[in-house]
């Protein structure tokens, strides 16, 4: 009997450690689950470190960070050596997670209503939501670009806030850094490192 309990416990722990959370394959439900999960974290504590750590975990599971990395570097990717590409992907993930979590940790109790979804094609669905207004902040429309190429595992690729794409802004920012340094990709790496370490 003890042995059985031990085996059940062992496999339970194993399962939970392999994947913390299984998200819905329906894009609208997928976003609703993420929003609810993030909200629990943001409400639970005021500890910025805790929020950052937990939000990073969610982001790693639900955001296509590598896809966004390729999108952000755009046409400059073809100039990268294998080593540089490897370094870029590592730097980008750190940069992305820091940027992503710092945007959210200031919220203590965000109220987001997930409203609708629209299938663009077999690769993308846009999920519409609204961040409810507070005394200090106006209502904000947030659209989520969900990548659905693997229909069983949707992934977020962009946040479009009031019609302004964060991914596009980031792409143009990266391009500006490279262009203003005579196409030197190392200057982008330096800027990313500076951001990560600040």
């Amino acid at each position, binding site marked *: 009997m003890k042995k059985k309990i031990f085996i059940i416990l062992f496999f339970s722990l194993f399962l939970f450690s392999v994947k913390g959370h299984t998200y819905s394959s329906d894009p609208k439900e997928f976003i609703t689950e993420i929003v609810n999960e993030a909200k629990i974290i943001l409400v639970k504590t005021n500890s910025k470190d805790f929020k950052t750590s937990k939000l990073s975990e969610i982001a790693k599971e639900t955001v296509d960070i590598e*896809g966004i990395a*390729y*999108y952000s570097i*755009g046409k400059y*990717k073809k100039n990268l050596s294998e080593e540089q590409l490897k370094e870029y992907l590592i730097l980008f993930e750190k*940069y992305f997670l820091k*940027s992503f979590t*710092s*945007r959210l940790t*200031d919220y203590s109790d965000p109220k987001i209503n997930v409203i609708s979804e*629209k299938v*663009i*094609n077999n*690769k*993308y669905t*846009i999920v*519409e939501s609204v961040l409810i207004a507070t*005394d*200090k*902040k*106006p*209502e*904000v*429309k947030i*659209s989520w*670009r969900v990548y659905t*190429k693997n229909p069983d595992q949707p992934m977020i*690729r962009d946040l*479009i806030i*009031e*019609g*302004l*794409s964060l991914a*596009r*802004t980031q*792409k*143009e*920012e*990266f*391009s*500006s*850094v490279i262009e*203003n340094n005579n196409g030197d990709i190392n200057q982008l790496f330096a*800027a*990313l490192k*500076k*951001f990560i370490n600040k």
Partner: protein
Amino acid sequence: MRKVIYTSILMILLQISVANAGSTDSEKLKVNKSQTATNECFEGFSRTVFKFNHGLDKAIFKPIAKGYRTLPVELRKGTGNVVSNLRSLLTLSNNVLQGEFNEAGKTAGRFVLNTTVGVLGIWDPAAALGLQKGGKEDFGQTMGVWGAETGCYFVLPILGPTTTRDAVGLVGNIFLDPVYQITHDTEIRDNVAGNGNYAEHNFWIYRGADGVDFRAKNVESFDSLEENSIDLYASVKSLYLQDRSKKISNSPSSIDTQNDSDWEEIDNK
């Protein structure tokens, strides 16, 4: 001299409003190739001016906006409604010029209801009657709707980010804004334009209040943008151009205005 300084300060607030006021508008974003291809007119100069404007914002406008936020919510809401109601007259002129007659009717209906029943626009009874607030329009957008090219991007001292088309639009707004035309007085007394009641100043006060109200609503958004940018100048440029494209396209949805071609490129690799 005092008048010049006073007007300049209010112009900065005005530009913040003009450049960014559409962030809550329900218009669409058309992120297309031509937008991303918008060239700089003179980037070095623009970056220097951008730094100057950024410094001014930190030293003057952000503290004002933060102070404004300490006022009671109802007072801020009423102020925001009044300036928004006055601003709708410029939108109305541009609705007509764009041939958006349904929108023009809605904008006019809202103005009449809110100015009368809503007591000079302090309250918004029009929304309760189903006339929801539409997007803001200006002459730069109207020229965009007419097919005028964006031109190149640059940053004006005090007035902030703009393009060739939008800079021309700023001048056009003066002629198209009924509030400016009503309050404007070209009479010269003692080498100063304006009548004894400083009627023209009322226009700048209203635009300044609009700028403060907008800045106050976006303190955290601006902080977050600043904190999370590796090149703030480039971020602001991208957001400005996306916002202008969105406004010109006049769509209530962001869904059908996204260009997927960039994403297709990475999927095909």
